[in-house]
C-alpha cells in the first residue's frame, strides 16, 4: 500500500478551515459600511470544494491517519458529504434571509464554516480526544449562532440555555471518557473495542458508556435529554435553526453509531434496550407535546425530537441494517427539515414576526409556490410514500422489525399517525382560504439563493423518495466500514436487506 499523506485524511476539514480564515481576513479588510453578503458566497464555494474533497476521499484506501486519530471510510465520506451539504444549503438560506444590517455578518459565515469543520471532524474522529474537541468546536459555534439575534431578548436566552446545558452535558461526556480511559487505559476507539471486553472491571465500562451516551443523546436531542430543544429553536433565528437542527444532530448521530457499533459492540445487550426506551420516549414525548403548539418553530422543535426517536429506532436492528437505515434517515431528515425551515424563514421572517400557525393561514393563496413546498415538506415529515421521509421511516422500522423490535415499530408508526395530526393541521391551515378581514402577513419574496436552497431540499427529498437506491447504497457501504458486532445478536431475519447489490435485481 502506498504512503498517503495524512493531510488527505482531513482534506475537507482543511479546506473548510482555510475558507473560514479567508472569510475572516476579507471581513477584516473590508471597509466598515460595505455589505458582507458576498462572504456567504465564499463560504458556499468553500463548502462545495469540501464536498468535492470528501467525495474524492473515496479514492483513498480506507484507513486512519494522524496516528489513528482520524479515519476516512465510506462512512465518514457519507457523513462529510451530508454535513457539507447541510451547511451549504444553510448558507444559501442565510444569504438572502440574513438582514443586511446584521452586525458581524462576516463572523457569522466564518462561524458556520468553522462549525462545519467541527462537525466533519466529529464524524471522522476515531480518537475520543478528537471527538471531544470536535464536539466542542461544533457546539461552541452553534452556541454563538443561536445567540446571534442579540437585539431580541430571546436570542441570548436561547444561547445561554443552550450553552449552559450543553456544557453540563459535555461534562458528563467527559466524565464518561475519563471512566473509559480508566477502564482501558486508552481513548482510541479501536483499542477500546479490543480492550473493553478484557477490562478488569466491566462495571466501569458500562458506566462510561452511560455517561458518554448522556452527552451524545443531549446533542441529538433525544428524550429525556431533549428538554433544551424547543427553547433554543424558538430563540434562534430560523436559518440558524435550520442548521443546528440538522448539522450537529447528524454529526452526533455519526458519533453515536461509532460508539455503539464500533467501540462497544459487545455491550449490545446494554445499549440496545437503553436506546429502545430512549427512542420510544423521544417519539412519544415529541409528538404529543407538539400537538398543542401554536408557535411553528416550537412545534417543529418537538417534531425534531420525535424524528430523533424514529432514527434511534433504526439502532434496534442488526448492525449493518441499523447503521445503513440510520444514515439514510439522517439524510432524509436533513433534507426535509432544512427545507421546511427554509420555508418558515421566508414566511415568518428573520425575526420571527409571523411564527404562529395562524400566520400561515392562506399561505398557499398568498404565495402558491411556497405554500405548496410547505405542504410537500410536511407530507414528507408525515412520511407519505414517494417522499424521503417515507423511506427514512420505512428503512428505520424495517431495521427495527428485522431486529425483532416489532413493538417499537408499531409504537413508532402509531406515533407518526399522531404526528400527522399536527403536521396536517399546519398544512390544512396553509391551504385554508384566508379570512376576509384578517391582515395576512406580507407576501414573502424568494431570492435566488433561497430559491436554490429550497430547490435543493425539494429535489433531495423527492429523489430520496423515488430513487433512494444510490443514497441507500452509499449508506450501506458506509455501514460495512463500521466494524459490525459478531453476528447472532440480531434476529436471524436479516436475510433480505443488506447484502443485495443494487444491480442484482435488474
Amino acid at each position: 500500500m502506498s504512503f498517503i499523506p495524512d493531510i488527505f485524511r482531513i482534506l475537507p476539514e482543511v479546506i473548510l478551515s482555510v475558507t473560514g480564515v479567508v472569510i475572516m481576513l476579507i471581513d477584516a479588510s473590508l471597509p466598515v459600511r460595505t455589505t458582507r453578503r458576498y462572504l456567504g458566497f465564499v463560504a458556499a464555494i468553500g463548502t462545495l470544494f469540501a464536498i468535492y474533497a470528501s467525495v474524492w476521499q473515496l479514492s483513498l484506501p480506507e484507513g486512519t491517519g494522524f496516528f489513528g486519530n482520524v479515519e476516512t471510510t465510506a462512512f465518514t465520506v457519507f457523513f462529510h458529504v451530508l454535513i457539507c451539504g447541510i451547511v451549504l444549503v444553510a448558507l444559501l438560506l442565510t444569504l438572502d434571509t440574513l438582514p443586511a444590517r446584521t452586525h458581524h455578518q462576516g463572523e457569522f459565515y466564518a462561524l458556520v464554516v468553522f462549525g462545519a469543520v467541527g462537525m466533519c471532524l466529529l464524524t471522522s474522529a476515531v480518537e475520543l480526544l478528537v471527538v471531544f474537541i470536535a464536539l466542542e468546536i461544533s457546539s461552541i459555534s452553534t452556541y454563538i449562532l443561536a445567540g446571534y439575534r442579540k437585539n431580541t431578548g430571546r436570542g441570548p436566552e436561547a444561547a445561554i440555555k443552550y450553552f449552559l446545558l450543553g456544557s453540563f452535558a459535555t461534562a458528563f461526556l467527559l466524565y464518561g471518557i475519563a471512566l473509559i480511559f480508566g477502564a482501558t487505559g486508552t481513548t482510541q476507539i479501536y483499542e477500546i473495542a479490543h480492550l473493553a471486553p478484557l477490562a478488569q472491571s466491566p462495571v466501569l465500562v458500562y458506566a462510561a458508556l452511560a455517561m458518554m451516551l448522556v452527552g451524545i443523546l443531549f446533542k441529538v436531542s433525544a428524550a429525556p435529554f431533549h428538554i433544551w430543544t424547543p427553547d433554543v429553536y424558538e430563540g434562534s433565528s430560523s436559518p440558524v435553526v435550520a442548521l443546528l437542527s440538522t448539522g450537529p444532530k447528524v454529526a452526533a448521530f455519526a458519533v453515536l453509531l461509532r460508539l455503539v457499533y464500533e467501540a462497544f459492540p459487545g455491550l449490545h445487550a446494554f445499549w440496545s434496550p437503553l436506546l429502545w426506551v430512549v427512542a420510544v420516549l423521544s417519539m412519544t414525548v415529541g409528538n404529543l407535546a407538539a400537538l398543542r403548539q401554536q408557535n411553528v418553530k416550537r412545534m417543529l422543535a418537538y417534531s425534531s425530537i420525535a424524528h430523533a426517536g424514529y432514527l434511534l429506532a433504526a439502532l434496534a436492528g442488526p448492525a449493518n441494517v441499523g447503521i445503513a437505515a440510520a444514515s439514510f434517515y439522517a439524510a432524509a431528515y436533513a433534507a426535509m427539515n432544512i427545507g421546511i425551515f427554509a420555508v418558515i424563514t421566508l414566511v415568518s421572517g428573520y425575526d420571527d414576526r409571523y411564527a404562529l400557525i395562524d400566520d400561515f393561514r392562506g399561505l398557499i393563496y398568498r404565495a402558491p409556490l411556497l405554500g405548496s413546498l410547505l405542504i410537500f415538506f410536511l407530507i414528507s415529515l408525515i412520511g407519505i410514500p414517494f417522499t424521503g421521509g417515507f423511506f427514512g421511516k420505512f428503512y428505520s422500522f424495517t431495521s427495527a422489525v428485522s431486529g425483532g423490535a416489532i413493538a417499537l415499530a408499531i409504537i413508532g408508526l402509531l406515533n407518526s399517525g399522531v404526528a400527522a395530526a399536527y403536521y396536517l393541521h399546519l398544512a390544512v391551515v396553509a391551504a385554508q382560504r384566508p379570512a376576509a378581514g384578517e391582515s395576512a402577513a406580507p407576501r414573502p419574496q424568494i431570492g435566488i439563493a433561497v430559491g436554490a436552497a429550497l430547490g435543493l431540499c425539494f429535489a433531495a427529498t423527492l429523489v430520496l423518495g423515488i430513487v433512494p437506491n444510490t443514497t441507500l447504497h452509499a449508506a450501506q457501504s458506509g455501514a460495512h466500514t463500521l466494524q459490525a458486532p459478531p453476528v447472532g445478536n440480531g434476529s436471524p431475519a436479516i436475510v433480505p436487506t443488506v447484502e443485495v447489490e443494487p444491480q442484482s435485481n435488474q
Partner: protein
Amino acid sequence: MHLILFLIFAGLCLAGAINLLVQTHPINSALSLIVVMISLAVLYLMLGAEFLAAAQIIVYSGAVMVLFVFVVMLLNAGREERTLGSKAARRVGFPAVVAVMAVLATLILHIQGLGMTTLDPELIPTAELSRVLFHELLLPFEVTSVLLLIAILGAVALARVEGSTVDDAERTAK
C-alpha cells in the same frame, strides 16, 4: 505524609466547593472556586503531574478565574435573589444528584486493581509529555486552534455592543 497532604487538600477542595455553593455573592463563589483549583493543583502534583499542576495554576486560576472575576465586576452582579425558585430542581434534581453520587461511589469502590500512590512517584517527564502532544496528538492540538479561533470570534461577535435593542414587549406578546 502523603496521606496527610491528601487529606488536607482534599478537604480544602470540598470546603471550597461547598463554599462556592453556599456563598450568595458571586465574588465569594469565584474566590472559593480558586481555592478549589489551587488545591487541585497540589493534588495533581501529588499524582505526579507537575506540568498540569503548573498549567492548572496558570490557565485556570490565572486566566479563567480572572475572567470570571472581571465579568462579575463588569456587570457588578449583586447578591443572588432567592425570590423565585424551581421546584423541579429540588424535587427532581437532588435525588438525581444523590443517585449519581451513589452510583459513582459504588462503581469506584468496585474498580479492580486500583493501585496506590507513593510519596516518590516516578514523575512523568514533561519532555515525554510534549513528545506525545506534538507527535501522536498533533491533530487535536492543531484543531484546538480552530476552537480558540471560534471562541475569539464568538466572544467578539456576542459581547460587542450592537445598535438598537428592540424591547421585547411585542415579542413576548406573540
